[in-house]
């Protein structure tokens, strides 16, 4: 149980994000929920690649004779972070345009077609 605490942290991240997506009506809060789920997934990928007592996979001035962490999950997480930033920028831009158009950020109000 106590050894698997990082996985529990991932579950708490993803659970809070899904709670926000299910129960909140504000568009900015929905964007925050999406970012929370994304951070949970990134943390999950990094956690899967960890090796106990290992160092970062960089040979410059590394302490010799120690095992190294798996590099592929870190590379995929790097890709995922930048794509997450791009999608977050698009979500926030659409929220700004919705606020300019409807004058509100509440999804129930936006659902009515006001023109």
């Amino acid at each position, binding site marked *: 149980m106590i050894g698997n605490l990082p996985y529990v942290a991932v579950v708490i991240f993803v659970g809070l994000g899904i709670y926000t997506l299910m129960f909140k009506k504000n568009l900015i809060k929905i964007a925050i929920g999406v970012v929370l789920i994304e951070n949970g997934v990134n943390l999950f990928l990094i956690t899967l690649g960890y090796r106990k007592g290992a160092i970062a996979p*960089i040979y410059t001035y590394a302490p010799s004779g120690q095992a190294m962490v798996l590099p592929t999950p870190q590379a995929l997480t790097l890709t995922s972070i930048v794509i997450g930033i791009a999608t977050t*920028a698009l979500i926030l*831009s659409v929220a700004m345009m919705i606020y300019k158009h409807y004058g509100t950020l509440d999804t129930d109000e936006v659902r009515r077609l006001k023109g």
Partner: protein
Amino acid sequence: MKEMSRIVKTVTNFVYGFIIIFGFYIIAHGHLTPGGGFQGGAVVGSAFALLLISYGSLNSKKFLKKDILSLFEGFGLILFIVLGFSGLGITFFYNFLANSGGWFGNAAVIGVNPGNMNTGGVIPLMNIAVGLEVLSAFGVIVLTMASAAEFTKKKENS
């Protein structure tokens, strides 16, 4: 966005250059130390955001030009694609400069070493290309959203 107080502007003037130099250091040393094109580009983009929120979106238009940034963005992406295609004699994205003795072509010492700047083949060039693209992409996003927020607020008040 309105400009902030004189304290914030003075601190920004001190810190701004250091943040940008640190970001370019991370980009240039991507194949030796932790970092790379994405991380360094994000650091330089955060310097742009700091400049924007301390000077306001109207004043910062004088020294942050959106057109030049979007030009750099297209240039970075095209440079990356050209570097990917130029290894096409063997495979797509082949590292044709590594261990060749030319540009960035020295062979790395196997094992723990202090690092040689002239290694890595095509990787440092790709770091520079992606770094240019990411920093100008962040700058364009931040500038566009700030000017749009300015317009929205003005319309609300009138």
